[in-house]
């Protein structure tokens, strides 16, 4: 049996039937993790921890039953604090920081039986769309363009998570999504990435980027796995005031349900000028698939879409500039001494943060400054409210929306790197969803002309991940995406 070829759903069945053991599954993945080292997805490997957890899973499974995620080996984005395991957010400033606590989301996963393979790469402090701003160097996408061996980016910021799952070096991974950081890398790597509603998963113990936008979510091989993972990750946490005090529905039950009669909104503003025709064509195929499954499509308008990126690039840096103030060299992480207190701050932060982080801290500080606050931050907050209202209005006439995930397929490492604006455009379809706090999923739906995966995005109403999963599962069935990346670590 090709153990790393199984989905969570399949592995769960095999484990329960005792056809395989958690230890065998862990061994296969630890081997795959080692084979995948050239991708530089993992920053830290924790095989001992994985084996120890697998032993406990096997003990439970032997008795019959077991926990929902018993034996499932996962990769953890290095933005989640993991007790006793270095958590550096891919930044030099946090190098060597070992948290004395476990994030709520990962603690939920371990409590449900999952085991940690290691910590995976990301853009520094999750600021980026290509996993190239990591202080630990870029991660490579396991996919290659047909007839072209140049390494491609895995997207970002959860690029390490996406690459590890796509290369079969993890059965699933955690990601975080502030402006598209789960969905865009999922699209680039041909996997499923789900950003839940803001407040569905606790942010406690996740290194903060932009608090009003950050949301954790699963990155998996298929839609069912995303539902299973989210089930374990989600839930109200009294330690996070913004986590929603709502019960967690049975997400997996939504997978496989008919979408007959559902109304799927197609936002006209997402038809960008100059968008590659293959993306346009993929979107059209998606529309035909949902229609064929008995849903109707509705043309909707999200008028404020064109302001979303600008709004995002004011609010996210503003919050980040404040959230990252704690990295000052005083209590933990990097300290670069100086003659004065100011010099200590300047040396530490100047050397500890990479260029993109510094850029965003500067932008954020600027837009909050006296004299600029009203023109930038306050205006952006107002536009954000209008964007949310756009969605509210549109959802009066539809139950979910269908859009492309990103305006392109994965690009090569080195491309777009000298132009931050071009890089920011990657998030044009995903950012509005964060600003409105809604759930969105990306699923692989086809290949580009040069053989790279392309994703479709389903957007739902707040706290209606069930409909999102239901529609995504139908699209997944129709798309029959079975292409494999050039590099598959687990296929030995």
């Amino acid at each position: 049996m090709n153990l790393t070829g199984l989905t969570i759903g399949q592995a769960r069945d095999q484990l329960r039937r005792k056809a395989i053991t958690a230890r065998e599954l862990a061994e296969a993945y630890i081997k795959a993790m080692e084979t995948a080292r050239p991708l530089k997805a993992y920053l830290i490997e924790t095989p001992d921890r994985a084996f120890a957890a697998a032993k406990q899973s096997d003990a439970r499974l032997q008795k019959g039953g077991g926990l929902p995620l018993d034996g499932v080996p996962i990769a953890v984005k290095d933005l989640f604090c993991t007790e006793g395991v270095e958590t550096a957010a891919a930044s030099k400033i946090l190098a060597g920081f070992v948290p004395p606590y476990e994030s709520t989301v990962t603690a939920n996963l371990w409590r449900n039986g999952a085991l940690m393979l290691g910590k995976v790469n990301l853009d520094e402090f999750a600021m980026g769309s290509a996993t190239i701003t990591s202080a630990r160097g870029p991660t490579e996408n396991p996919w290659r363009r047909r007839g072209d061996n140049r390494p491609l980016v895995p997207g970002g910021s959860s690029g390490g998570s996406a690459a590890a799952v796509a290369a079969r070096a993890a059965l699933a991974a955690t990601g975080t999504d502030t402006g598209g950081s789960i969905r865009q890398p999922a699209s680039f790597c041909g996997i499923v990435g789900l950003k839940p509603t803001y407040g569905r998963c606790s942010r406690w113990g996740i290194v903060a980027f932009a608090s009003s936008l950050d949301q954790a979510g699963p990155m998996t091989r298929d839609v069912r796995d995303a539902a299973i993972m989210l089930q374990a990750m989600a839930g109200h946490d009294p330690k996070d005031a913004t986590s929603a005090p709502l019960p967690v529905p049975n997400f997996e039950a939504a997978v496989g349900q008919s979408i007959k009669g559902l109304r799927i909104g197609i936002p006209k503003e997402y038809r960008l000028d100059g968008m590659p025709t293959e993306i346009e064509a993929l979107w059209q195929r998606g529309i035909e698939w949902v229609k064929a499954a008995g849903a109707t499509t509705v043309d909707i308008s999200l008028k404020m879409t064109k302001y979303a990126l600008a709004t995002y690039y004011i609010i996210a840096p503003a919050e980040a500039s404040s959230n990252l103030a704690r990295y000052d060299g005083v209590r933990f992480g990097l300290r670069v001494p100086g003659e004065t207190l100011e010099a200590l701050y300047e040396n530490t932060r100047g050397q500890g943060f990479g260029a993109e982080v510094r850029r965003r801290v500067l932008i954020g500080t600027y837009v909050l400054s006296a004299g600029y606050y009203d023109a930038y931050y306050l205006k952006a907050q107002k536009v954000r409210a209008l964007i949310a209202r756009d969605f509210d209005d549109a959802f009066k006439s539809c139950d979910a929306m269908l859009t492309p995930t990103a305006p392109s397929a994965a690009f090569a490492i080195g491309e777009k790197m000298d132009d931050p604006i071009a890089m920011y455009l990657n998030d044009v379809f995903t950012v509005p969803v964060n600003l409105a706090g809604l759930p969105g999923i990306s699923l692989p739906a086809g290949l580009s002309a040069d053989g790279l995966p392309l994703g479709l995005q389903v957007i739902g109403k707040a706290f209606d991940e069930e409909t999102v999963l239901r529609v995504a599962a139908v699209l997944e069935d129709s798309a029959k995406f079975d292409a494999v990346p050039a590099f598959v670590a687990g296929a030995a």
Partner: protein
Amino acid sequence: MSNLIKGHTGEWEVVIGLEVHAQVISKAKLFSGAATDFGAEPNTQVSTVDAAFPGMLPVLNRFCVEQAVKTGLGLDAQVNLHSVFDRKNYFYPDLPAGYQISQFSRPIVGKGKIVLDMPDGSAREIGITRLHLEQDAGKSLHDQHPSKTYVDLNRAGVALMEIVSEPDLRSAEEAGAYLRKLRAILRYLGTCDANMEEGNLRCDCNVSVRKPGGKLGTRCEIKNVNSIRFVMQAIEYEARRQIELIEEGGTVVQETRLFDSGKGVTRSMRSKEESHDYRYFPDPDLLPVTLDPAWLAKLKAELPELPDVKKARFMCDYGLSGSQASALVAEKETADAFEELQSKVSKAVSIPATATANTVINVVSFIAGERGVSPAQFISTNDVPGALILQQKNVISGRMLKEVLEGIADSKKSAEAFVAEKSLKQVTDTGAIETAIDAMLAKEPDKVADYRAGKEKLLAYFVGQVMKATQGKANPALVNELLKKKLAG
């Protein structure tokens, strides 16, 4: 009462507004579960939230909100049903997150007032601009190492109420009266211990001067003054400094100043140009605070009786004078002790409340002060009711009361036992007193003649002689009466 200060060019008016930081009485900090005890070893009351570790999030302590709302109600203020926590951003080693969570544009409490009872019996109403909740910072210790600064985060995250007054105060005395009254209200409410020495009440003073009725002058802010006496000294000094500066042709520069209590002067700390841009914005980690009007009404109904109301009741129910009532209500414990004392004594004998009040204000306060305890503590641990009852029964005289109170405090005996043991009973036996009077008059024939010739002032001398002869045990009223009769006869 004139508050004007005389300068070379005429009189000046000083305009003062106070910003008080009052530490909320709460077991846990404003946004973390860490303890708040005063005087703990450095860095022993610090959670990962207080130290701003990565991924840590603030969770609002509801009890602190309740304390702030109670305080707002006690200041007769507008309580806002919707308020917001903001981040005030600046870098300092004792501010771990690089921002302080505070309330900027939407505080939990809006406009209110405090009524001051001035020594001359007048009342002054001082406006409260706002009250908001915020976190305290930690403490930078500069004296532990020749070249390093140490940081103690025990205080970091402790809940503070910043209470801002309108610029309604006009003298150092008024500022002192304001702080004493605010302290009393906070203590009555149980929302702040209000000990400036322990640092749980701190005061920033905004001071400016102007010609009476003229437009407001440029103000200076004196930061972190830590006793009422120093607040008054700092204002006094600062007002005179500004007047002298202006009269010598200079101008006051808006700046932050520090008070040097050793030298009694204020010194420039930083000018307006150097002031921070705090980049306030709503804290995205916290939801806005929404209060339920029913909950608010319940808190209001359960509010304890506050000094002003208690004072009015003492005047109305007990017939006390305004100054007596003010003196008693300044500390809730004293007021309670007075009421309990009056009630206990009244059960045994009839006693005018004014007499009890005077005993507490003049005698008990003095003796308690000498022993380093509060009047309330003195009353609760000694047989003060017994002593008062003996006095009302004429067993001891008013002058003997002090001696008895001191005696029972030292011996820990009941008043009755102490009086019996020391044979302190006053002589009310007319026969014995008459004997003493006759003996005394017999020794002073000349003075008796003078008295009878019209030198009536001598009566006091005669009373004194009789009291001396009886070792102070004779009932003075009786001595007086009998003497007059004898001398007339």
